[in-house]
């Protein structure tokens, strides 16, 4: 189990800066996720950690050891690829045992450890199957077993679940987390699926265009986005541009409609002064239909309703702005209905532009 630290890690492909001065610290035994749209550099970052790409600038440390220029095969990482990457000319046993044979582990022990790890990933008795006889989910488990069996210092996951169907994906997600916690291995996980990232991670780094936008627990990232990218990328919300007209503990923001709302900075680090342009963000569940003390009030007309079982999502507008509002599933609301909705100032977030 190691901690991982990168300092100004940079990787350039031709004209494209895939990873742009990324400095991160990943703690012992942490499940750390890189989340971002495709092409944001998250996979390149992971490959650089694995030693599959050479960093152009910056360094990588496993604990205090600088491994920036260390070849991949000496790093002791276990990696699970998006396409599983099982060797077609070997059966399940040989695929998993390969790393142990390289380490000159005695034959008996290899047999025992492969058996153990197959039990761990729930594939007992599949030793003699060839990869093409396995389903996608089983292939993924073999790939995982192959990475686990060598007792890696770090587990690296490159979108490992994206080729599985939705139901299996959710099962495997929990499975992965359980295994990682049981074995206590530091893990870096790459995905573009925010729900997956939220449900599996201790901490998440949101990436865009090679840069880290924000690092935090899933809760922090959802509740306190640091900038517009994170605010828009994570979850849903109502976004209204405006200008700060009074600052302090609580802000007053004038919206384009002329209306003034009370708000708080989206993140403790965000400083907003009078005259700054800002973006008001309100999560759907922050709206209520009950007026509260000093709550911001909006008058809207509902134009679409999505019934989700445990809630209903209303899409509504006041001719200038669009709103997404979550309401009680039992509430009787019709398209075209006019509503007054309220948002408490502490959930009316002013995002720095």
């Amino acid at each position: 189990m190691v901690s991982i630290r990168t300092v100004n890690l940079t990787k350039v492909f031709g004209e494209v800066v895939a990873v742009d001065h990324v400095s991160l610290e990943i703690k012992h035994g942490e499940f750390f996720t890189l989340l971002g749209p495709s092409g944001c550099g998250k996979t390149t970052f992971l490959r650089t950690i694995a030693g599959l790409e050479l960093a152009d600038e910056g360094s990588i440390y496993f604990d205090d050891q600088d491994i920036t220029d260390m070849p991949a095969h000496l790093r002791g990482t276990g990696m699970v690829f998006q396409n599983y990457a099982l060797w077609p000319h070997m059966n399940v046993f040989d695929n998993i045992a390969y790393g142990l044979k390289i380490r000159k582990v005695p034959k008996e022990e290899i047999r025992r450890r492969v058996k153990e790890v197959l039990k761990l990933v729930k594939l007992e008795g599949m030793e003699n199957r060839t990869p093409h006889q396995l389903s996608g989910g089983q292939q993924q488990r073999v790939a995982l077993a192959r990475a686990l069996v060598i007792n890696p210092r770090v587990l690296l996951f490159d979108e490992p679940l994206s080729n599985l169907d939705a139901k299996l994906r959710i099962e495997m997600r929990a499975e992965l987390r359980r295994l990682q916690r049981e074995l206590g291995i530091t893990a870096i996980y790459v995905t573009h699926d925010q729900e997956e990232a939220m449900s599996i991670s201790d901490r998440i780094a949101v990436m865009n265009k090679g840069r880290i936008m924000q690092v935090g627990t899933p809760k922090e990232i959802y509740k306190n986005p640091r900038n517009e990218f994170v605010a828009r990328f994570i979850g849903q919300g109502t976004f209204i541009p405006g200008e700060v007209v009074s600052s302090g503990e609580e802000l007053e923001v004038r919206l384009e409609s002329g209306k003034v709302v009370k708000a708080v900075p989206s993140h403790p680090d965000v400083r907003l002064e009078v005259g700054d342009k800002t973006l008001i963000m309100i999560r759907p569940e922050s709206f209520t239909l009950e007026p509260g003390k000093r709550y911001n009030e909006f008058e809207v007309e509902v134009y679409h309703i999505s019934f989700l079982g445990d809630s209903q999502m209303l899409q509504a507008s006041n001719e200038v702005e669009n709103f997404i509002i979550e309401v009680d599933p039992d509430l009787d609301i019709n398209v075209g209905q006019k509503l007054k909705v309220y948002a408490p100032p502490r959930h009316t977030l002013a995002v720095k532009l």
Partner: protein
Amino acid sequence: MGQAAWLSKLLRKIRWEMDTFSWSQLIIVLASFTAFLIVPLGLVVVRSFYSSSGGFSFYWLQTILTDPFYFPLRLKLLNQFPFISLEGIRGSLYEVVKYQTAAGEETIVLLTGWDMGVIPNSLVVATFTTLFSTVLGFTLAFVFAKYRFPGSEVLRIVSLIPLLSTPFVGAIGLKKMIVADGVLNVLFYDMLHLLPFKIEITGLPAVILVQTLLFYPIVMLNSYTALISVDPTLEEQAINMGASGFRLFRTVTLPLATPGVEAGALLVFILSLEDLGTPIVFKGTTAEKVLTFQIFNRIFTPAGLISQEATTLAMILLVISGLVFVGVRRYVSLKKYAMLSKGGTWRPRRRKLSPAITLLVYIFILGVLFFATLPHIGVALLAFAKQWGPTLLPSSFTLDNFAAVLSDEEASRCIMNSLIYSTIATLFMIVLGVSAAYLVSRKKSLPGIEALDLLVTIPIAVPGIAVATGLFLTYLGTPLSPTISGAPLLIASYTVRKIPFTVRAVFSGLEQTDKTLDEVAWTVGASRTRTFFSIVMPMILLNVLAGGMLSFIYSMSEVSTGIVVGDANHRDAPMTWKMYDMLFHGLAGGTFQPAALGFLLMTLQFIFIVGANLLLRKRATALIGV
């Protein structure tokens, strides 16, 4: 960025990508190609500018270019229209010869062609061969790719038959067909009375005919692949917008298929230019007056050294083919047609034909196939013939020719030599070819790796006789001298000249195996070397085998170096030299025994090429094309 920083960054990158194993792979490839291709060809160029005293001089180039034998063409200004005339062309396209026979007067039209001197002749032959091969090959490819008719798949495969033999063997067979009392005249003049006179094709036209019949499949394969790779929706789009018929063909189909057609045509041009086998078979006619034959004919001075004249001619041949290669490559790569590289996963658009048109298509295809199979049928018949006068078929058949060849001590030694040299060369080609293909496929980010790719592909465009000349210039008088043993230079020549077949097969295998399969092995602790042997090699084994088979069989049928080395050292000569030797210096058997040898070679070639293609199934089309 400062120069020092840039350099240290580059060094770091190289250190990262290249471990000891990769270095050894790179070094053996570079060393072999330097020693047996770059230095020899360099010497050909350098030596052609030596004066007799050893200094730099244009003497030989000037001598050759002003010698009417090599370059008689002169432009002359005139006082009247068209104000300019080209002089120095000798002979005429055809001659009419009449002679008396017992049956009365007979007329023979001799198709001899003009003689414009050695250098223009080579270019004219290559140009016409390319033109005819392209028209024939493209038309066939178009018909097979675009129309549906019964038996099209079988006919398409049959029309690839000429790929199964070399011009040298094919020419022996075709010669028997096209002489005055040959099979075609027997059939069309004597028997069917379709011709008003006999036709004999000889000299340069015969060379063009042989080459066209043997090379059109190269254009056909490339064109066919290009045509079926064109996304049918592109054509459908054009039809939607109102294009149809010839307009559709001219504005959409043809431009999209052009790179494939051009690649095939380029290869044919260079193969024609470097073909030595056909001119040799038609020795004694104007067919001799081409660059390859002249180099071959005067490579040794009476003192046993390499003549400067031949060296300079080899330089000229090398420069011409180099210019053609570079020119066309640049032109083709300028136009990037992305959809071509992907290959088709769609069903190509194929039209059904009306019965009348189908009949015409059959007549065309069967007509082509009739002529295209003539060389091979000719060789086969000659090989089994006991006697064959001016008749359609040999008057009697026998196995004696094979018995004679196999019991001839020298002939069987030559066959053994060929087998041994080709086997050893194939082992070298596999080691070097796999190394080169691996580096090119897996280290794409390394600066300069494209140069390695070019180095191992370019031998396909280097005339064999130029390589032979260069190897002699470099190694005569050294321990590798062919006068000591023919083996080293022949093996070296086979290796550098035929390696593109291995490289291509292995490279396509590597491109089809995902790089993450290598990478995952590194992450679980396997070094690059270990990954190469335990992961990469097992996955591309079939490709290695198929590539090796092709390289082997093309080594067996190599002509240029083989004949030159064989002439210098009969004991170590290969099979192709023995065919040549029997053809012109044989005491008995005439063309029957060389044809028997040729038939053996052809059979072997058939087995290996079909075998290699079966191993690779559908991927095979890429193997023979450029």
